[in-house]
C-alpha cells in the first residue's frame, strides 16, 4: 500500500492554452453560424428599425386621407405600396402599424417572462406546499385556451392597446411559470445546488448565483417563441376590435378595415397579413435557432 502512486500533480494540458469559453459565448458563436437565424435577424432588424425610426424616414402622413386616391395600386403617384380604403399611404401605415404591433407583441412577453419566471422559479425552488399553492392557481388560467382567454379578458377590460397588453400578459404568465417551475425543479435537485447550500449561503444567494443562471436559458427560449404568438394574438384582438382603436395604424386593425376591399384590391388587403406572417415567422425561426444553439452540453 505504501508504494501507491506518489502525490502526482494533475495531468495538465500540454503546452498551449486554448481560450476558455462560457456558455453564452458558445451560444453566440453557434447562432452567428446559423444562416436561417442570421437571415431572420436581418429581416427583423429592418422591421424593428423602420418601426423605431418611422417619423424620420420621410414617409407620408399615415393618417392623411384622400377620397380621390382610394385603393390605388402599387407605385401610384409615389405611393410605393398603393393606398388603403381611405386613401392613406400603405407603406407609411405598414411602418407605423409595425410600431403598434411589435409593441403589443413584445411588451406582454417581457412582462409575462418577469412575472411568470419569478413565480415559477420561486415555486420550483421552494417546492412542497408553496409549489402546490402557486402552481394550482396557475393551472386555473392554464385551463383556458389562450386566444379565448385573451378575448375574454380584453372583452371585460374594454378595447385599447393598454388593455390588450394586460390581457396578453395574463395569458402568457401561466405558460412561462410552468416552464420556469419545471426547469427550476430539475436544477434545484442538482448536486451543485446542494453543494452551494452546504456552504451555508442564504436561499437568495443560492438562487441568484446557482439556480438563476441555469434556468434563464430555457425560459428565454420559451419566451422568444411566445413573441410570434403574441403578435398574432394581439393582431387578432385588434382585428376583433378589442385592441388598438381606429384611426391608429396596427396590422391587425388594418387587416380588419381592408377586409371589405378584398375583392377590389386583394394585394393591398393582404399586405398587413403578410407583415404579421413575416414578423411572427422570423421570431419563431429565431427562437428555434436559439433553442438549438443552446442545446450544448455546457
Amino acid at each position, binding site marked *: 500500500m505504501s508504494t501507491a502512486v506518489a502525490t502526482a500533480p494533475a495531468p495538465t494540458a500540454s503546452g498551449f492554452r486554448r481560450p476558455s469559453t462560457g456558455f453564452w459565448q458558445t451560444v453566440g458563436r453557434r447562432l452567428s453560424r446559423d444562416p436561417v437565424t442570421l437571415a431572420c435577424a436581418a429581416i427583423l432588424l429592418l422591421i424593428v428599425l423602420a418601426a423605431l425610426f418611422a417619423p424620420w424616414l420621410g414617409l407620408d402622413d399615415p393618417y392623411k386621407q384622400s377620397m380621390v386616391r382610394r385603393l390605388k395600386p402599387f407605385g401610384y403617384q409615389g405611393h410605393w405600396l398603393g393606398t388603403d380604403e381611405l386613401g392613406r399611404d400603405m407603406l407609411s401605415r405598414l411602418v407605423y402599424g409595425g410600431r403598434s404591433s411589435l409593441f403589443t407583441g413584445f411588451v406582454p412577453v417581457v412582462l409575462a417572462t418577469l412575472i411568470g419566471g419569478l413565480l415559477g422559479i420561486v415555486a420550483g425552488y421552494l417546492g412542497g406546499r408553496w409549489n402546490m399553492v402557486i402552481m394550482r392557481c396557475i393551472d386555473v388560467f392554464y385551463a383556458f385556451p389562450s386566444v379565448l382567454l385573451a378575448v375574454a379578458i380584453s372583452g371585460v377590460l374594454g378595447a385599447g392597446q393598454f388593455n390588450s397588453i394586460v390581457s396578453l400578459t395574463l395569458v402568457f404568465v401561466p405558460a412561462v411559470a410552468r416552464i420556469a417551475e419545471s426547469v427550476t425543479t430539475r436544477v434545484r435537485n442538482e448536486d451543485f445546488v446542494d453543494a452551494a447550500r452546504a*456552504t451555508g449561503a442564504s436561499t437568495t444567494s443560492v438562487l441568484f448565483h446557482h439556480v438563476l443562471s441555469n434556468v434563464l436559458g430555457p425560459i428565454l427560449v420559451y419566451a422568444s417563441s411566445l413573441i410570434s404568438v403574441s403578435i398574432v394574438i394581439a393582431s387578432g384582438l385588434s382585428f376583433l376590435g378589442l385592441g388598438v382603436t381606429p384611426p391608429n395604424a396596427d396590422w391587425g386593425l388594418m387587416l380588419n378595415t381592408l377586409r371589405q376591399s378584398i375583392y377590389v384590391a386583394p394585394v393591398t388587403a393582404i399586405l398587413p397579413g403578410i407583415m404579421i406572417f413575416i414578423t411572427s415567422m422570423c421570431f419563431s425561426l429565431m427562437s428555434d435557432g436559439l433553442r438549438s444553439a443552446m442545446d450544448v452540453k455546457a
Partner: protein
Amino acid sequence: MIYTRPAAFTPRSAAAPQAEPGDFRVDLQERDRGGPAQPMLIVSGLKKHFDIGGRSIGGQRTVVRAVDGVDFTVRKGETLGIVGESGCGKSTTARLLMHLIQPDAGSIIFDGDEVNAVRGMSISELRRNMQMVFQDSYASLNPRLTIRESVAYGPRVTGLSAAQARARSESLLEMVGLEPSNFANRYPHELSGGQRQRVNIARALAMAPRVLILDESVSALDKSVEAQVLNLLRRLKAELGLTYIFISHDLNVVHYISDRVLVMYLGQVVESGPVDAIYAAPRHPYTRALLSSRPSMDPRRRIETAPLSGDPPNPINPPSGCRFRTRCPQARPQCGQEPPALAPAPGSDSHVVACHFPLSSSATVPSPPAKGALQ
C-alpha cells in the same frame, strides 16, 4: 463508547479564528475545543423516514425507512469508511449529517457541541466545519461558473472580499494539483472527471472544514485516476489535519483509505470497528458476505456462488427483528423476534456488531483478494 460533553465548554466565539486572506490552512489546533479525546462527531439515533405518499390499510403513512436509528462516532483525525449495498442509506446519512436533508430524529454532537440545539452549534456553523464532496463530479459543479468562481463561492459567502476569495480559490486549486493559470478560467465541461473531482475537493476545502464527507467521491473515476485522487486525499488529510467520512461501495478502496469501518444494511449499522479487524475477521454474517463478494485477483480463488442472493428487502416494510435475517445463512427463530442491539463483539471492545449470533473471531473471510489489489 459513551462520550459526554466536556464540563468546561468554551463559547464558540472564542474558538473561531478569522482566516487570513488566501490562507486556508487555519490553525486546526486553535479550533479544537474538546481536546484530542473528544470525538469529532457523535451521531446517535439518526433517523430519516421519507414520506412517499399514500396510506397503507391501517391508516399509517407509507414511509421509506432510509436511515433508521444510526449511531456512530468519528474520532479526530481518523477516516471512517461507510460501506453497504446500494440503497442502504449511506448517502442519506451523509446528507443528514450536512443537514441538506432535515433528520427526523437523532442528535449530532460536533466536537462537544450539539448541532441545532439551544446552546449548541448552528447548522451554518456546522457547515463551515464539515463539507462534502459528491459522487457526480459533473453535476456537482455549476456549468455556468468557471472553476475559480465555483471554488470562490463558499469563501465569498463567509464574508471574504472578492479578491480574497479569488486568492484562496487559486491557492486551493494549486493545492489539489490544478495549475490556476491553466485551469482557473475553465468551465466544468472543459475538464476531465478526475480534474473535476479535484475541483470539488478544492471547493469543499475552501470552507476550511475540519471534517470532509466523501460520498462515493472516487467511485465514478477510472482506476488510475481514482488512485491519484485517493493519494491526494491522503496528502490533504495529513497536511490539513482533516477527518474524513469516506462513503463507498468499493471495499478495496475503503480498506486502503480507512482507519475504521462502518457497515450499513437497510438503514442501520450492523457492524463497526477497526478496518483490519473487520476485514480480517468480520463478526456479522452480512459483513462476511460483503467481503467475500469481492472479486479475487487469484483465478484459483474464483467465487463459485454468490455469497448473497436476491435484493435487500423493501425498506418500506423491513423484516421484523434482525433486518438481515431474510438473507442470513444462519438465521434462527430468535432473529425474527427481537432486533439485535449494537454491542461489543466478544473479545474486543472497539469492534461492535449488531447480531444475536456473531461469528467467532477465528472465522475468516472465504476468499479475500490479495492485499494490495488496489494497484
